[in-house]
């Protein structure tokens, strides 16, 4: 027994030694800076002065009790995330099913849907900004359709849908590829067996395909969720948080607190809260989705 224990311990030590370099690298480049920024969140610091004043929990107190703007940004972020997770994944899955079938020119289509994903979001924001203003105006002049004359980026209600459209348009391709890969792992024989048993296409999809591609869904939802909560670049270039503050996301709010108002301490306090939020939401989501995955 002790012999075995010793052997196990030895093995553990050897494996531990192998991971040591990676562990050190991660410690130095990720964990220590992270802890330093947690420390900054307890200070009053403008990012430039040579001293950081320790003020305890003041930043967190202000954050929770005296910052309605941040909570508005938080609400907007959550709404946008929910909407984009649902829209992106439903659209991507539908398109994946379509492009996984024997469609003429499906390779070209797959590539076409993927292209926006390669372009930087900042560029995409500027392109769409142009489309929404100048592009839509010429559409209106040539077609006369009232739809194009709506102020898609200037109206406080419409702007939500513009942002949603652009972020879905950008990320669709990536999730599409993941779903197609997932669909190709579904064994043909199961589908054939269900056909013999008399299942129609809907039953097939919901009873066989969907449960079997659950791992892809877990990955995609996780990815789109954390991306949604961190949404920044598309907002910065498309609306810059406006009009007013209607499209300010929590990440943009943090950026402005730290780099525009020069409140680094307070900004890091906000980002610690964002970190905790993403941590909680993502782990709940992954746990919930993992339980629904099935093995063949």
């Amino acid at each position, binding site marked *: 027994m002790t012999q075995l224990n010793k052997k196990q311990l030895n093995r553990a030590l050897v494996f531990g030694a192998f991971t040591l370099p990676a562990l050190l690298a991660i410690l130095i480049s990720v964990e220590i800076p992270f802890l330093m920024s947690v420390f900054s969140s307890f200070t009053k610091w403008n990012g*430039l002065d*040579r001293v950081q004043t320790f003020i305890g929990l003041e930043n967190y107190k202000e954050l929770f009790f005296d910052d309605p703007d941040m909570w508005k940004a938080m609400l907007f972020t959550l709404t946008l995330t929910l909407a984009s997770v649902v829209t992106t994944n439903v659209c991507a899955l539908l398109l994946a099913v379509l492009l996984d079938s024997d469609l003429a020119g499906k390779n070209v289509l797959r590539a076409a849907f993927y292209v926006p994903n390669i372009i930087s979001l900042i560029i995409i924001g500027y392109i769409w900004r142009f489309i929404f203003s100048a592009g839509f105006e010429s559409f209106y002049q040539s077609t006369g359709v009232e739809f194009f004359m709506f*102020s*898609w980026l*200037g109206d406080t209600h419409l702007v939500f849908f513009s942002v949603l459209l652009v972020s879905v348009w950008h990320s669709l391709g990536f999730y599409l590829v993941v779903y197609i890969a997932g669909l190709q792992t579904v064994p043909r024989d199961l589908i054939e067996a269900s056909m013999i048993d008399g299942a129609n296409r809907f039953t097939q999809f919901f009873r066989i395909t969907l449960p079997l591609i659950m791992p892809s869904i877990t990955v995609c939802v996780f990815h789109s969720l954390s991306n949604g909560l961190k949404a920044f670049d598309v907002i910065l270039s498309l609306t810059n948080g406006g009009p*007013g503050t*209607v499209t300010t996301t929590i990440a943009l709010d943090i*950026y402005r607190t730290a*780099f525009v108002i020069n409140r680094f301490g*307070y900004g890091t306090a906000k980002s610690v809260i964002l970190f905790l939020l993403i941590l909680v939401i993502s782990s709940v989501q992954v746990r919930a989705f993992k339980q629904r995955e099935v093995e063949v």
Partner: protein
Amino acid sequence: MKKTMLVLMLLLVAFSPAFAAGQQEQKTGDVTLNVLFYSPELAEQYNDMVAAYKAETGVTLDITVLQTDYRSVLTSRLNSGDIPDIFMSSAYADNSTYKDYVYDLTDEDFIKKIEPSALQGVTVNNRILGYPFLVQSHSFIYNKKVFRDNGITALPRTLGEFEAVAKKLQANGVQPFATGFKEFWVLPQTAWQAIAEVPDAKYGGFENFVSMLNTGKLKFKDIPEMSQLFDLLDLIGKYGGPKPNESDFNDQTSSLATGKVAMIHQGNWAEDSIKKTNPAVELGFLVGPTGDNAATGGIMFDSNQTIRIAKDGKNLQAALDFLRWLTTSEYGRNWIPGKVKQLSPLIGAAAPDSQIAQETTSLLASGTPGYPWFYQMFPTGTEQQLGAILQGYCAGQTNRSQTLDALDATYAKIAKAAL
């Protein structure tokens, strides 16, 4: 395979520290100044100046020009110890933002060659902490041809007169304004000008006005003249075309150049962009309305863009020599009026070949008030944050009293953190 290996090895050598060190040794003979500037629209002029300086003195200016993320890049470079020898910032509130890093220029000989009025924004307790780079003005720019074609001969000075002009233009099928409301910096510039006469008239000057705001003794909601500001924004929004909240700087300059709109609220820096669209455009500068009092309507005239010298830089002396050259050499004196084509803060400088700069000079000469950019005295960060609140007002997100409350709350918070 062998070839690939060779290329890889070469790359490795090229990026290795040994090689880099060798390069540095080569350079020790001549000085290289590290410069961080903004206003990329001036990139050509910067490069021209860098080449001239290199030719005259042999000193290299390693210049980086940024715009939107300028502040964040500067902050992180100062933080990480990679301090540029020469950098730019705004005047007023930025004096205290960068106080730990900037060199005190008070006793330098070349400072005496600058107009005292231009030094106002960089002076703290009689110490001069920056070098005013150029003098700028902002107000309403109009397309003279559009005004002529629509029979507008009397130039507007009050809110009522502006409205009458806008109505007439609209009736003739010309869009009166391009708003620029999408830019966070255009909105506050437009808005604060509408109350520019108030601090002097009622609160004992701009400095006192701002310090009353900073200490919370004065609230925006207690200033009755704030209605002038809202009236002006309403007017521009109402006559600003079908999508007033989507107009940005490019829209403003190109629409004015082509004559699609008659007026924009912008500064003399916009002239270059306007002329790129239409080189033959005739531009005029209007007095901005402060309510309905024609006598107090004025233009915003100040030296805001400031060059700062890092006090801990390795090349402090060389950086000072550069400023001296910019102030005294023939090329340096002619650079702002001749190449940048804006107003120079130097005493006795030549007049630039720019329509708006010339109109600025003649407006000021005829007794029109030139107000300082007092909103730059507000604590750092207020420009963007208050701009966003005003943008919300223009988009109908908040009404007047909600907007005033939001302005007060945000201002108080930033002031508390900054002071």
